[in-house]
């Protein structure tokens, strides 16, 4: 095993015992294997414990399909919302300086540190029948909690920061020169954004969207508080995993879980592709 940089001076070679890189690589593979690969294997092996037939069957039940639909609907709404927010927040905080900017940055991070249970609870306190807006919502026959709207809101809260967090440092590092150049060349604000800023941040943006998407698809704690768990109506895939598991349908539960793991792997694969395009790994 040699070090990856081509121009490594002789100094390093003589100093480091030959076994050191081998040792580090082995240790890393063991850690990754134990912490990450093994759990993934458990999901897959359990899902296919009874063979491919039952696996496919479990994925085709109406309840699973409806949970899949709701999960996809949630993602389709939440990800664009948080993406528009992320771009907007990154533009405001990275291209401008204004009083309270660092407080705003902390607030954008806040949902990351809030327990998922609390993320669900706040909406119950706000929109539940006992909540602040509950009576008004009921009077107008609007349903938020225990309906897809509540699930979408709770998921939005949980994945709130992901796109913004990706974009802000990248936009900050890029500075304002490109935008100013576009302005001096006569571009309008919108042209500057779409033709200069957006291409500059596209990989970070895509990465943020992917991570937001992954979390939105997988959120459990917050959603379980506001879902009502009505089979076929307010079940998302992660909730459906729990339900199947509680019904002693272990194979089906893990089959759905493996579907989610598959989405996760797909996401990670896409992410790796992005990194190979940009040529460096992403924070």
């Amino acid at each position: 095993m040699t070090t990856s940089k081509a121009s490594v001076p002789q100094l390093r070679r003589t100093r480091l015992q030959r076994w050191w890189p081998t040792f580090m690589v082995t240790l890393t593979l063991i850690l990754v294997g134990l912490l990450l690969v093994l759990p993934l294997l458990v999901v897959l092996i359990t899902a296919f414990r009874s063979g491919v037939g039952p696996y496919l069957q479990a994925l085709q039940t109406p309840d699973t399909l409806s949970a899949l639909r709701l999960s996809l609907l949630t993602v389709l709404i939440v990800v664009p919302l948080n993406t528009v927010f992320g771009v907007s927040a990154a533009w405001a905080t990275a291209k401008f300086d204004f009083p309270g900017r660092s407080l705003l940055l902390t607030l954008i991070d806040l949902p990351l540190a809030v327990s998922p249970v609390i993320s669900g609870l706040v909406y119950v306190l706000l929109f539940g029948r006992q909540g602040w807006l509950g009576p008004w919502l009921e009077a107008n026959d609007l349903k938020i909690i225990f309906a897809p709207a509540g699930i979408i809101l709770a998921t939005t809260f949980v994945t709130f920061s992901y796109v913004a967090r990706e974009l802000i440092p990248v936009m900050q590092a890029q500075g304002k020169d490109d935008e100013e150049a576009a302005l001096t060349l006569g571009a309008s604000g919108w042209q500057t954004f779409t033709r200069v800023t957006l291409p500059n941040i596209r990989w970070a943006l895509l990465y943020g969207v992917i991570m937001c998407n992954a979390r939105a698809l997988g959120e459990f704690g917050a959603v379980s508080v506001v879902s009502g768990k009505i089979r076929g109506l307010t079940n998302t895939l992660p909730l459906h995993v729990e339900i199947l598991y509680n019904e002693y349908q272990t194979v089906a539960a893990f089959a759905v879980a493996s579907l989610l793991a598959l989405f996760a792997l797909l996401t990670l694969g896409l992410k790796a592709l992005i990194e190979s395009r940009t040529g460096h790994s992403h924070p």
Partner: protein
Amino acid sequence: MTSRLSSGRPARRHILPGLNLTLGYTLLYLSVIVLIPLAALVLKAAGLGLDGFWAAINTPRVWSALRVSFLTALAASLVNLPIGLVIAWTLTRYRVPGRRLVDALIDLPFALPTAVAGITLTTLLSPNGWLGAPLLEAGLRVAYTPLGIIVALIFIGLPFVVRSLQPVLEDLGYEPEEAALSLGATPSQTFARVILPALYPALLSGFTLALARTIGEYGSVVFISGNLPFKTEIAPLLIVGKLEQYDYAGAAAVAVAMLVISVTLLLAANSAQARLGRRGQA
């Protein structure tokens, strides 16, 4: 340079367009999605009055649950520091077979639903599980003990530490290390005095992010924790328990206590990182 001086300072009127629009939208969205709901939570807890709030928090059960949540998250985040350092170091410096795959896998805990993680880890580590059985043989109980919670939280927190370290390690390059070696430092001195200090801000930020994220973790923990009061009962579970006894204000009170801890951590991380970052630039 003059240009840097001028662009770094606030202008009275901004030439780049869109500040009002984007800042306005950002604040509106932040308020609707985050601030107003959190305000509702704080108001609910405030409804108890200061005495009532304190009475809801100041029970041995609540303290114990907060302690379990905090200590297990702390332990897991601490353990993640060396683990994350080894993985990040290896991925940036050595030729790892299947490097892209391994690198991509780091984000798995991010993307995998927490409930799936919880069920899977429990399956793996329970006394009759693949890992649990041999470990029990060796006298180590993992599932349904604080150790089980810590393992789940290590899983959840790992990406935060690795992802914080990776870019810094890439930027660091070999020069400072080689400079230290050329000045006669031993490899371990080089690591302790040159490399590690350069990584402090990243380690700190990864650590606090992992801590803030894991301290309130629920989905992956409830399955593996065993939920024994005073032993393995975590604070979010207590919130759920209070809710199920229709004690909204009590649940909100515990939630506010957790929120205060999380926000404090986040602020501490931000300011500490800013301080260390400044020192690092000088």
